[in-house]
């Protein structure tokens, strides 16, 4: 039934932790920028966050980066707990969709998410000038009291699907690029439709360096992480 299986590959051996994806995501998805005090209170909003880990003893310390965003689980813990069906599974796109106009802000989904990638709007969004001039018209500006999260840039997926549909052809591989993938300078993020056998993600998986985050929970994430550490050379 499902037409697409949108999948992301994160090559940790290529990620430099530059945060370009974070900035791109904020700009694309109208994610408000929380103040320092709000962040300290645990009320920051980032649909994608770069977790930093230090490895080794001084002076041989290495920084390891792990970009974490919604894993678009095949069996998502956030979905069954929503009393208003605001968090639901799109059979069509194989994505976890958050319908903002249905959300009443119970925050059950955020509490049930093992990846902690759902964010709650504790305040009405404020965009300091000139940021209010660059809001994306294709994305809803969420009000206070609404849960939000990474959507794999559903607006870009829909736009590509609508264009392809009007032109009577399937979506081509690489036609849909979430903002983070587009911004990544080291090509650490790869996105595509796993059901398209010719797509880059389909050809790259299964990969000998792959793992999934908290795989043992049985959430069936749609995000593959690649990590070979010191042994990794080339693709």
């Amino acid at each position: 039934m499902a037409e697409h299986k949108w999948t992301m590959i994160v090559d940790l051996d290529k990620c430099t932790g530059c945060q370009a994806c974070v900035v791109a995501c904020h700009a694309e998805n109208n994610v408000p920028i929380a103040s320092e005090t709000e962040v300290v209170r645990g009320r920051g909003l980032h649909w994608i966050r770069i977790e930093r880990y230090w490895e080794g003893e001084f002076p041989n310390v290495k920084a390891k980066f792990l970009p974490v965003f919604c894993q678009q689980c095949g069996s998502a813990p956030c979905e069954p707990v929503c009393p208003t069906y605001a968090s639901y599974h799109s059979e069509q796109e194989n994505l976890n969709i958050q319908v903002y106009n249905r959300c009443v802000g119970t925050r059950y989904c955020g509490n049930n998410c093992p990846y902690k990638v759902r964010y709650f709007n504790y305040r009405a969004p404020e965009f300091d000038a000139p940021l209010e001039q660059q809001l994306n018209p294709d994305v809803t500006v969420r009000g206070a009291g609404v849960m939000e999260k990474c959507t794999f840039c559903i607006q870009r997926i829909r736009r590509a699907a609508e264009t392809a549909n009007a032109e009577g052809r399937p979506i081509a591989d690489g036609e849909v690029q979430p903002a983070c993938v587009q911004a990544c300078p080291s090509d650490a993020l790869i996105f595509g439709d796993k059901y398209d056998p010719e797509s880059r993600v389909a050809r790259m998986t299964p990969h000998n360096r792959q793992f999934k985050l908290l795989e043992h929970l049985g959430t069936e994430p749609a995000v593959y992480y690649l990590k070979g550490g010191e042994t990794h050379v080339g693709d």
Partner: protein
Amino acid sequence: MRIISGLSSRQRLLAGAVVVGGLVLIVAAAALLVTSGRSDAASEQPLAFNHEIHAQKGIQCQFCHYGVTKSPSAVIPSVELCMGCHQNIRTDSEIIQELAGYWERQEPIPWKRVYEQPSYVYFNHRSHIASGVTCGACHGDVASMTVAHQVVEHNMGFCLDCHAEQENKEALYDCAVCHR
């Protein structure tokens, strides 16, 4: 009653005034509620554009609303597009001279929206036209309206009634089709 009868005549007058004042307020609020509903956009348009005349001359909808086959938005035409014809046609008419005024001042015409969607609804004209939906299916017979006004209520039920009849109903019932 005992309490009221215990009041002095001055206090009774004051109480009466408060009651009357309250009533006046309620009536005013009700009147405001009735009039603040969506009034006919027609009467408020800055320029008395006549859809019927243009349609009678054989001009297709997408000649002016040229975005309809190419983009999510159907496009309200620019003054430039109007002037493309009207620098020669009906230049003696008062309305056209008003239009020419906008052109000379290089100002856009502040048209009032006739159909509006909430900010969390995303509609794509192009997909609908590509799937063979006619303009009239959602906008009524604009070609016979002197001034465009809303004849179809665009709520979620209206959209889904039509989506339910389509072959790919499953796909069109997905929330993310319109909400994102």
